[in-house]
Every structure is written in structure tokens, then in C-alpha cells.
């Protein structure tokens, strides 16, 4: 009986260890997954959004977040080239460079985005969106976690079309009050 109990405890312990490893692995590879983006284009105007654009916006915004999370985690500003331009790229590049100088990096666990189209310019050359993002943010100094908090963040986003994708031109967090 005691042997069976011992095996049972061992099995439970082993299962717990495997779960912990799995959780750690999931966290480590979070930025390798494309974040979930739910897109609402019901209220966008004055230009009516095209079918293809309404498919590309959430896809490209999700890929932008993925590359941003990777750039900030791996301290690689070059990753920002694919989906960022203008002030957004400039600001994030500065952020990564100052992280490198400070010996720091951040890790996001992205729990998804609710993206809403607000303004689509008559010429179709810019779109303003609001994003409500749910994230877990860990800030590292070297290998040590100095901050670990869930965040419910709101962003104002400007996206402009590039050759084959929409690019994030401005990504600005706003405080809780409705902008």
C-alpha cells in the first residue's frame, strides 16, 4: 500500500513538473505566436472599408504586435522594419536601443486585442483604430524579473498602406478615459 502511495505521489510530482515546464515553455515562446485580433469595422468612415482591407488590417496589426514583442524581447530593432514606419518605428527603435544600453528586455504574454476602426480617410491612405489589448508584461534587468503585471491597455493606432501590407505609423497608449 505504501509503495502504491509512493508511486502515486511520484506520478503527481512528475505531472506537476511537466506542467511547470510546459507553462515556462509557453511563456518563452509567446512572441512566436501571432496574437489574436478581433476587428470591428462597423463604425469606420467616411470611406467604406473594402473587403480585402478589412481582412488585411487585423492580420497586419497582429503581425505588427508579434514583431514588436519579438523586437522588445530579443532587443532586435531590425524586426520592426516589416510592419512599422514613421513615428511608431522611430519610437520603438529608440526604445530597443535604450533597452540594449541598460541591459534590459521585456517579455509580453499577449492575451488578445479588440481592434476597432474609427476613421478611414476618403483617399484610403490612412486608417485610425482603437485597440484594447490584454497583456502580461514582464520587465527584465539581465535575467532578473523586476516587474510582472497584467495590463489592460488602450491604444490609438494610425495605419497606412505599404506595398503589400498595412503598416503601423503611430501606436500611442491612452489612459482609461474614452479618447
Amino acid at each position, binding site marked *: 500500500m505504501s509503495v502504491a502511495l509512493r508511486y502515486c505521489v511520484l506520478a503527481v510530482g512528475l505531472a506537476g513538473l511537466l506542467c511547470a515546464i510546459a507553462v515556462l515553455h509557453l511563456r518563452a515562446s509567446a512572441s512566436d505566436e501571432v496574437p489574436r485580433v478581433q476587428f470591428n469595422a462597423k463604425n469606420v468612415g467616411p470611406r467604406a472599408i473594402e473587403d480585402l482591407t478589412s481582412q488585411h488590417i487585423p492580420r497586419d496589426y497582429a503581425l505588427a504586435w508579434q514583431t514588436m514583442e519579438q523586437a522588445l524581447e530579443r532587443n532586435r530593432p531590425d524586426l520592426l522594419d516589416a510592419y512599422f514606419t514613421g513615428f511608431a518605428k522611430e519610437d520603438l527603435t529608440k526604445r530597443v536601443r535604450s*533597452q540594449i544600453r541598460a541591459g534590459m528586455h521585456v517579455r509580453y504574454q499577449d492575451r488578445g486585442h479588440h481592434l476597432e476602426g474609427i476613421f478611414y480617410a476618403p483617399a484610403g491612405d*490612412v486608417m485610425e483604430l482603437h485597440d484594447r489589448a490584454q497583456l502580461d508584461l514582464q520587465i527584465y534587468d539581465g535575467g532578473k524579473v523586476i516587474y510582472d503585471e497584467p495590463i489592460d491597455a488602450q491604444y490609438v493606432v494610425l495605419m497606412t498602406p505599404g506595398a503589400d501590407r498595412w503598416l503601423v505609423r503611430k501606436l500611442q497608449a*491612452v489612459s482609461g478615459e474614452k*479618447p
Partner: protein
Amino acid sequence: MRKTTPFLILMAAAWSAGAADLHPPAQTTAGNPISIASSGAGDATFYLIGPASVIKRQVKAGTDIAVDGDDLQNSGRYVAILCGSDGCGSSPFFVTPAAPNRVSLQVHPSRVPVGSVNGISAVAFVFDNLHNLVLKSPPVKFSILPKDGREVSADRPVENAIAWVRLTSARKEGTTKIGAAIGHADEVRVVEQVAAEACNLRIHANRDKNGFLVETDPVRDCSGNPVPDGTVVSFTMSDSAGKSTVDVPIKRGVAKITMPSKGRARISAASGVVTGNELEVGG
């Protein structure tokens, strides 16, 4: 005594946990310096993580930590962290945009036919001096400054940092300036208003040694503006040999071509969606 000991331990733990606490203002304005009160004692490391910067420096816990306005230029969420020997404490805060003082104006298209109803769109993005979008601001003043006419202006409300307007191009060709202004900032774009489609396309023909020299009257739009050189006029000739079409660009206001034919022929011309008169020649 037995009852007070756990309380004292809790108090000590709370004091220890709060050793690295920070108290930044809940909200501040971009570009303004702030002072962050800290509690605790001894050497500590202060971190400030913002949208475009990361600061890390050694400080004395328990003192006020000064942060330059240069380190708070970007509007958005910041996290201030203080790590001492007994752990880290943190506090997020928001930096809001400063007053609106920049406008970024997008005007489309840069060339527009005259008389295009709502053919021009002007979109103004409102920023502060530090390139932060200002979501709430006074209206933007849009102005139209024709080359030889008086200025017309109108205010448009700003919603989510954007004000926009649709405009109809003038009846007369030429450049016009479209401006947007807020506070001390303004931006101007130039739009070239060009002749619209040809109107009342007329052709005439004269026999020459190789056939018929067919020529248009000066090609103008319905407002009387000359259609730009380079616009294509298609001449079509039908004769006993069949039907042939030649595309000819307008040069110096007219399009002309010699069409080889010896017998009777019908000649017509078209430009865009406009067709001209038909000629019957020869015979």
C-alpha cells in the same frame, strides 16, 4: 504581548515590502519634468520604462527622484520601478499629450479635374510639439487660397486627433493652396486643378498629297479650359479598305494626323468618353 508580536511582524513586513515604493503622479504632461517620491533607505536602482525610452540609474531610496522632461516626451504608459536590497516596487503612470501645436495635413489628389464635386479631400492630424497625437483639441481651420481669388476658410471639429473636409475643385484651372491651422501651427498643400474631360470635340479635314489631314479645333473642357497636352484623341477612319484607328496626343491644344485614303471615307474622333463630330470626306 503574544497578541502584539504577529502585529509587529506584519508591520515590519509591510515596512520592508514598502521599502522600495514609488509615488509618481498618476498623470503628467509630455515634456514636463517630474519628481517621484520614493520610500525606503539605502542604495537602489531606479528604472523608468516608457514608449520610446528606458532609464536605469542608481539612486538613494527614500529621496525624491527627478525625471527630466526629455525622458517624458512620448505620451503613453510609463512604468517606474525601484529595486533595493529587499526587492522591487513599481508604479505605472500616464503621460498625456501637451497642447496641440502641430498639424499634419494630407490632401488628395495633387492633380484634380476642374469642377470635381467633393473631388479633393483634406485630412489634418493634430499633434503636440513632441509628435504625440492630441485626441481632444479645438477645431482645425481649413483654408482654400485660390491663385487669383479670395481666401475661403471654415472650422472643422477634431475627433480622435483628426479633422477632415471634402472640397469641390474650382471651375477654372490653375493651382490652389489648401491649408490647415491650429494654434500657431499651419500646413499648406498645393493642388493643381487641371481641365476636365474634353467637351464638344470638333474636327475638320483637308485633303493633302498623302490622304486627309484631320485636325481638331482647340480641345477644351466644358468650362472652357484647354485640355492638357498629351491627352489622347483617337481618330477613326472607315473607307473601302476597312476601319482604322490612330491615337494622337494633343500638342499645343490640338491633335492632328494625316490619314491615308484615296476614296470616300468617314472620319470621327473621340477623347475619353467624349465623341466628336463625324466627317464624310473624298468622293
